[in-house]
């Protein structure tokens, strides 16, 4: 359940950041898309991290009831394992189990090199933002700029603000801020960009 909330919040936060930039005309499809995306993300996380698929395959094998799709499923599981295991630095989400241990345990101390690394990434991000802005991609300019800003922001949140090592509640709290912000923007936009234009006949 924790995972569902976790991934749901990430999906929602992403939607909240991207909806305005894809244009409000596209708003509803994007919102639906984001909802679907986060749903898929949730399902994936359940399969990947709680080993549902693994158990299913094991179960099937044990009962000897293996159908023709079993090899397919096994392939999928392998792909998931391959994706999950390498120590990718971007996978902020993968570490939430640790959060629970912190309620009573020692505070997590992030070593200085990590901080330096994050600083360098942030500076690099700034350079990219400015550099990209000099090139005209049309409407994509905003999208790229916000994308880079979001990446920078998530580094600040994850490492400087220790959210990566924090407990679930604090993450839910912070995510809810973004979620309700999205509500404000989505519903205001739902009004402002669907108004009928009144034309004078004389």
């Amino acid at each position, binding site marked *: 359940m924790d995972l569902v909330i976790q991934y749901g919040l990430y999906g929602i936060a992403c939607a909240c950041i991207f909806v305005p930039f894809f244009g409000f005309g596209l708003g509803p499809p994007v919102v639906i898309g984001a909802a679907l995306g986060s749903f898929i993300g949730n399902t994936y996380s359940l399969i990947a991290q709680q080993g549902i698929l693994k158990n299913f395959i094991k179960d099937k094998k044990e009962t000897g009831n293996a159908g023709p799709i079993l090899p397919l499923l096994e392939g999928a599981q392998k792909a998931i394992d391959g994706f999950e295991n390498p120590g990718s630095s971007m996978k902020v989400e993968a570490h939430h189990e640790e959060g629970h241990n912190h309620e009573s345990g020692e505070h997590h101390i*992030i070593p200085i090199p990590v901080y330096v690394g994050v*600083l360098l990434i942030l500076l690099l991000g700034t350079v990219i933002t400015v550099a990209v802005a000099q090139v005209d991609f049309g409407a994509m300019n905003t999208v790229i700029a916000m994308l880079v800003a979001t990446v920078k922001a998530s580094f600040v949140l994850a490492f400087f603000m220790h959210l990566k090592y924090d407990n679930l509640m604090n993450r839910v709290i912070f995510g809810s801020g973004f979620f309700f912000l999205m509500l404000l923007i989505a519903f205001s936009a739902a009004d402002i960009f669907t108004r009928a234009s009144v034309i004078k006949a004389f």
Partner: protein
Amino acid sequence: MSTVKTEDGHFHHAHHFKNLNHQYDSAKQGVWLFMVTEILMFGGLFVAYLIYKSLYAPIFHVGSSYLDVKMGSINTVVLITSSFTMALGIYFNQKNKPKQAVIALVLTILCALTFMVIKYFEYSHKIHLGLVPGKYFNNPEFQQKVADFINAMPIENLTPAISDINNMKKIAPLYFGFYFVMTGLHGFHVVIGALLILWVTIKTARGQFGSEYYTPVEGVGLFWHIVDLIWIYLFPLLYLVG
């Protein structure tokens, strides 16, 4: 947070908490809740900004060309660096190294001051040019540029809202309304943040924190990172995206 350091060098938690860790977790949750309110408060401004930007794109395009990207970029770097030193300030407190912690925190304050000085130069330049919010706006050149920009746009890109050039000239100061309100509110937070950091610096220097108890540093740090976070979004929105 009524924690006191006793003579034997240990910290006592307030009477209604079970232990120091319990108190630390509670305090941190409180700070995070407050951060949510900060996000939502600035969020209101972002919502308004995005709505008007999509309604009156030309004003925002021309407006952003009036801002100095160089100064904005320097300020971004300064704030990011300050976030880094703030994180170090917490780190050294966690490691029981008050001296280094004080250095890191003082550096943070210096960054905040640098930020405000640069902001001051930007502001005075704008005010000098009359590029200020509606009531005091006095820069016909800017309005003319908006009009020229719209005239140069291909006809199929014009919406009814922006094709009324006289009206667009009249409402052109809107961009600087946003600029001053958003950066002004942010600058106010920078000042408050700097004062709070000063407060924890003094407490650190007096040896009132250590690896057992550094909650105020952590809380102020979170606030400071939020200030940084907001600027990370403000900078491209105001200076770069036109």
